[in-house]
């Protein structure tokens, strides 16, 4: 394929390296150094997409991040699909496949364009708010049709094969943008010795110096760029990040940089040295100082049919010609309000193409570039502008007329010029997005016709980013910013001698945004402001007529600026139009607030490595390997993986959960079982005031607990609601070991520290987490003592080692602390050993335990067994609205303790003191076969009409193999006074279960089994 618009020489592409690619199924060729956009233009591809609302054909407008039209779908494979790629920022690679995101059956001939043409008239802004309302039931159907036209690209339907990561960076000076200002700033800061990061979004650093006509020290500007980059690359204190976008500026100079590491190579990251490469990397940068050298975006002019392919930004024309060696047409008309845009015409002409005319809106343009154009014989039509483009799928002409800017009217005859390309320039908008992210409201400057950033402490802007445009001044500005940033960061400023740039005399620009047409805006051909969202000047006019007067209202009503380009091209024009219509100035209409991201960022890059196997830590106990090998199913408890139950293989089949749990329960009640309880939080508490402290944070008394003894404790918050529980052992007079729930461990430790550090620093006590130091295994069941006696030297005599005692000794040859506490109601020994020995101890217990039927059990069996005993689980039987009294745990509350412990005062508040609160009870289903649903709601009157008054709910419910019956714990309004009464549980399937309110202790109410 020939590249019909490719110049024979010039540009920064490598003509010796040919790359082939496919667009909309057609094969083309480009060169190394091309973007997809420059390659498409080189091949004369005019239509790259169809517009969102009207399905109008659209071509490439810009050459960078501001491109609204050339947003394409990339990808050969399903998993490699990338939606919404800006062709202007996608480097061409060999084998690239892309297609338009809209257009059916294809982008050339789109059926929807008929709808757009015929129906467009009926789609003023906000039309959807005004219709589709009748009948009400039809909206969901209307919406289905509307959704058919939603969206640009499509999501891949297969999982991403690529990986992403983060790099935490810290630097003294971050310079954003490596154009003239950024390079100069980076040089100045780097030479001072500061740690510098220089970041630029483009494939190559250099910014405007890569396509400028100006000479630096009488040499092409890119030579100076190369020298500067070479110096920076050689410095240890400098990190250069090309292809990297500073996409978000967060508080205190935290900036995220999105580095695209392989997107210029292939759609999915190729292997490197046989290893996976990261597709993109997010640099999370904490900077000391930041220099924003982000340049400026050119504004297009708003005139009739300004969206027809062949309408380009003037600066983009220069970029394509000078940087990519592509002239995207033959006959150019330039429409401008300023001198700078003249370079597009000069670049065009120098490459052998025809400049039909320049329409300059100013009456007497006289800058140097204007003189050069005159000297070249270009026709300049002053006081005029292109008011309308002709053509449908490509520009075929330009209608030019004298315009009266003050009167906003066409002031003379219209001349139609024959051309295929219209370049326009309405001036420049500093790129203030990043400064805007920090909350600073930009300010309008009439002298540069643009918003400049308001900067927080520690940030400076240099060059185009603050409206300084002349190259020589930009360089000086950059050096100053770099020096100042380094100095503020504590480095001695270094000198930088800058190259000479010939000063150029530019004439003043005029303010021109929307170009008047002969017809009033509402009747004129569409004048587009936001190309991606099909927002027109007429749309803005309708919005203001309807009372949408703030620019925020206008934007929302018309959807202006809500596209993927976020209004980079159109927002200022839109504001100017609204301002004119409302008779206000631009700053009076509002300001423009940008949010992150500057340009869209791949989710994967934000996620980094925190996905799949590394999404969240999995915490394991020291016996985890054993559990895995013995077929455990696991339950997630916080970040822990705990064995849930241990199904056996019976006749080649896996035992059901129901059967496994029943078997495990029986083993504990009839023989002996073992539980890995290592996940319980364990806090070592030492100090003379430890006992006093416990008395304040627990509801019950601790004054008399002797060394060698253990006690259960409840913890409340100061609102009187239970939040954690556990046992605490007195190890020595000034030494306690507290246990917490698995999920509550970290929270309880912080809670203790909080009270100690802020309220009671006078108490001498220290808290240290020892959760991971100890592995804990609970051996429980009638045979527990026999088993233990085989492996320990501790005297297990029931008088020597009583229930709620702890002893130390050795278990399986390992030093151990053993606690006689029971969460099952059976005889139980909780063995604690240093975790490194745990697996040995666990396996030794099994070696001895087989003859006693030692059975491992998991959390589910633990839940059944404890519920049979009426032991609560904080977080399951409580929900932050339950007091100790509600739980019937009066026995665990010391009202007469000298210190008003945490939670005590709140218990006497009127609502907390009510005696008809929801209280913990047992429920016995009338039908023993029924296992009530956990979460089932309880009512007294199941025949009551809906809404039916609910009096409580089931918190825990199981089948008990011991009772051979379903049973449950529940909270019921006033339940403690309603023993023996019947309650009802109406279920979703229409069944109504009946249950009797009973004591929550279903088994061994006197506690004889655990006390043997």
């Amino acid at each position, binding site marked *: 394929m020939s590249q019909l618009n490719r110049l024979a020489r010039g540009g920064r592409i490598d003509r010796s390296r040919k790359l082939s690619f496919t667009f909309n199924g057609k094969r083309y060729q480009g060169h190394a150094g091309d973007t997809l956009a420059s390659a498409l233009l080189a091949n004369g591809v005019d239509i790259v997409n169809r517009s969102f609302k009207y399905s109008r054909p659209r071509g490439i407008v810009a050459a960078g991040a501001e491109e609204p039209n050339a947003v394409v779908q990339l990808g050969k494979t399903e998993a490699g699909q990338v939606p919404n790629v800006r062709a202007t920022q996608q480097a061409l690679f060999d084998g690239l496949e892309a297609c338009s995101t809209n257009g059916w059956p294809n982008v050339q001939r789109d059926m929807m364009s008929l709808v757009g043409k015929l129906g467009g008239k009926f789609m003023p802004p906000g039309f959807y708010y005004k219709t589709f309302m009748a009948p009400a039931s039809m909206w969901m159907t209307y919406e289905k049709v509307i959704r058919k036209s939603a969206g640009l690209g499509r999501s891949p339907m297969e999982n991403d094969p690529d990986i992403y*990561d983060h*790099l*935490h960076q*810290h630097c003294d000076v971050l310079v954003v943008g490596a154009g003239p200002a950024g390079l100069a700033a980076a040089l100045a800061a780097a030479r001072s010795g500061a*740690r510098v990061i220089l970041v630029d979004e483009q494939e190559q650093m250099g910014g405007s110096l890569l396509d400028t006509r100006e000479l630096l020290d009488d040499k092409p500007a890119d030579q100076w760029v190369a020298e500067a980059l070479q110096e920076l690359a050689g410095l240890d204190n400098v990190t250069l990040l090309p292809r990297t976008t500073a996409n978000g500026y967060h508080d205190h100079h935290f900036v995220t940089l999105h580095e695209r590491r392989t997107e210029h190579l292939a759609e999915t990251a190729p292997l490197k*040295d046989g*290893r*996976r*490469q*990261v597709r993109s990397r997010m640099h*999370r940068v*904490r900077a000391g100082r930041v220099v924003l050298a982000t340049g400026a975006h050119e504004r297009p002019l708003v005139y009739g049919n300004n969206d027809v392919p062949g309408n380009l930004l003037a600066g983009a024309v220069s970029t394509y010609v000078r940087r990519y060696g592509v002239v995207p047409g033959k006959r150019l008309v330039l429409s401008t309000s300023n001198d700078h845009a003249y370079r597009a015409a000069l670049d065009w002409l120098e490459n052998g193409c025809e400049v039909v005319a320049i329409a300059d809106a100013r009456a007497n343009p006289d800058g140097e570039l204007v003189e050069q154009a005159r000297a070249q014989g270009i026709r300049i039509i002053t006081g005029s502008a292109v008011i309308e483009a002709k053509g449908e799928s490509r520009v075929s002409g330009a209608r030019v007329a004298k315009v009266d800017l003050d009167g906003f009217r066409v002031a003379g005859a219209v001349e139609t010029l024959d051309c295929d390309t219209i370049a326009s320039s309405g001036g420049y908008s500093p790129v203030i997005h990043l400064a805007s992210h920090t909350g600073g409201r930009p300010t309008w400057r009439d002298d540069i016709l643009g918003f400049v950033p308001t900067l927080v402490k520690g940030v400076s802007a240099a060059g185009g980013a603050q409206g300084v445009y002349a190259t020589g001044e930009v360089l000086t500005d950059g050096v100053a910013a770099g020096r100042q940033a380094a100095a503020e960061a504590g480095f001695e400023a270094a000198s930088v001698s800058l190259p000479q740039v010939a000063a150029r005399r530019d004439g003043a620009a005029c303010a021109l945004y929307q170009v008047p047409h002969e017809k009033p805006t509402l009747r004129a051909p569409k004048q587009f402001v936001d190309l991606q969202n099909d927002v027109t000047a007429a749309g803005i006019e309708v919005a203001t007529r309807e009372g949408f007067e703030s620019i925020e209202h206008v934007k929302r009503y018309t959807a202006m600026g809500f596209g993927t380009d976020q209004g980079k091209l159109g927002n200022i024009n839109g504001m100017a139009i609204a301002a004119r219509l409302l008779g206000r100035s631009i700053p009076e209409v509002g300001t423009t607030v940008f949010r992150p991201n500057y340009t869209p960022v791949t989710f994967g890059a934000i996620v980094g*490595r*925190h996905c799949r*196997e*590394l999404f*969240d*830590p*999995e*915490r*394991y*106990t*020291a016996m*985890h*390997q054993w559990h895995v090998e013995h077929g455990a199913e696991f339950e997630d408890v916080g970040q*822990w993986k705990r064995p849930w139950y241990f199904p056996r293989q019976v006749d080649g089949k896996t035992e059901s959960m129901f059967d496994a749990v029943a078997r495990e329960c029986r083993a504990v009640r009839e023989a002996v079982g073992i539980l890995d309880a290592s996940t319980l939080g364990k806090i*070592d508490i*030492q100090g*003379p005031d430890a006992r006093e402290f416990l008395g304040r944070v627990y509801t019950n008394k601790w004054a008399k607990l002797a*060394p060698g003894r253990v006690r259960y404790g409840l913890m409340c918050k100061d609102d009187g609601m239970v939040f954690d529980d556990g046992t605490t052992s007195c*190890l*020595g*007079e*000034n*030494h306690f070991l507290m246990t917490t729930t698995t999920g509550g461990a970290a929270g309880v430790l912080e809670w203790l520290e909080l009270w100690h550090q802020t309220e009671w620093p006078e108490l*001498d006590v*220290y808290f*240290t*987490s*020892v*959760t*991971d*130091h*100890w*592995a804990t295994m609970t051996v429980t069941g009638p045979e527990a003592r026999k088993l233990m006696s085989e492996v320990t030297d501790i005297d297990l005599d029931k008088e020597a080692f009583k229930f709620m005692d702890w002893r*130390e000794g*050795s278990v*399986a*040859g*390992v*030093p151990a*602390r053993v606690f006689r506490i029971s969460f099952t109601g059976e005889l139980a020994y909780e063995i604690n*050993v*240093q*975790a*490194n*020995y*745990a*697996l*040995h101890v666990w396996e030794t217990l099994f070696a001895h335990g087989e003859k006693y039927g030692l059975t491992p059990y998991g959390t589910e069996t633990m839940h059944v067994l404890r519920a049979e005993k009426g032991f609560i689980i904080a977080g399951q039987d409580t929900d932050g609205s339950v007091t100790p009294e509600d739980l019937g745990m009066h026995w665990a509350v010391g009202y007469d303790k000298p210190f008003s412990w945490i939670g005590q005062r709140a218990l006497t508040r009127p609502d907390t003191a009510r005696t008809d609160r929801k209280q913990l009870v047992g429920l016995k289903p009338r039908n023993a076969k029924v296992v009530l649903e956990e979460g089932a709601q309880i009512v007294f009157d199941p025949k009551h009409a809906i809404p039916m008054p609910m009096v409580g709910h089931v918190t825990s419910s199981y089948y008990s193999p011991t009772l051979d019956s379903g049973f449950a714990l529940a909270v019921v309004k006033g339940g403690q006074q309603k023993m023996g009464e019947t309650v009802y549980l109406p279920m979703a399937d229409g069944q109504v279960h009946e249950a009797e309110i009973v004591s929550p202790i279903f088994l061994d109410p006197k506690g004889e089994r655990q006390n043997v």
Partner: protein
Amino acid sequence: MSNVATFDTRTEAKIPVESPLTYSYRRSGAPAPTGKSRVVLRERPFLGHLILRGGAIVLDEAVREVLGVSLPGEPQGLVQDADGERSVQWLSPDEWLVIVPGGEEFELENRLRAALGDAHFAISNASGGQTLVELEGEAARELLMKSVIYDVHPSHFPVGKGVTTVFAKTTVILRRPAEDRWELVVRRSFADYTYRWLLDAGEEYGIGVER
């Protein structure tokens, strides 16, 4: 102090032990270092880890007497004895981490307790609950940059510094005992996650594991 129950959780008996990374080696493997490995990971298991709580002045005297090094009084301080086998690290204004060769910790605790007498302090043994992971090699720092939020640039993290900070989605104590070596003190239950993270993030540098 008799009011506190000390307990030697280690035994001299020949008992099989499993370090926190034992399971991880089985589960995820341990790629051997090659000539192309730009970073090497090594676990130093079964060391003695003690947490010291108390006032700096009181503890300093005892630590100097018993261990022969002075307590790092400045935040983020890490001191080692002459052969680098024993270290004391500042964790907080009243908290230090002491790491010694495995087996020394109980005797050390007893000697410290004796030296401290009636002062208010606390010593807790954490040896079973954490392990030490070393990273060495030219890419070690960049691997850390992928993993911890703290600034590990040599100008900010000189030898002799140690911090508690965020590592991926967990916590780590990060120390720099030598120019070319970093140490991560990792909690046992998070060790597998930390290991898998380091293997994954280190793949780019051909990470190898020395066992």
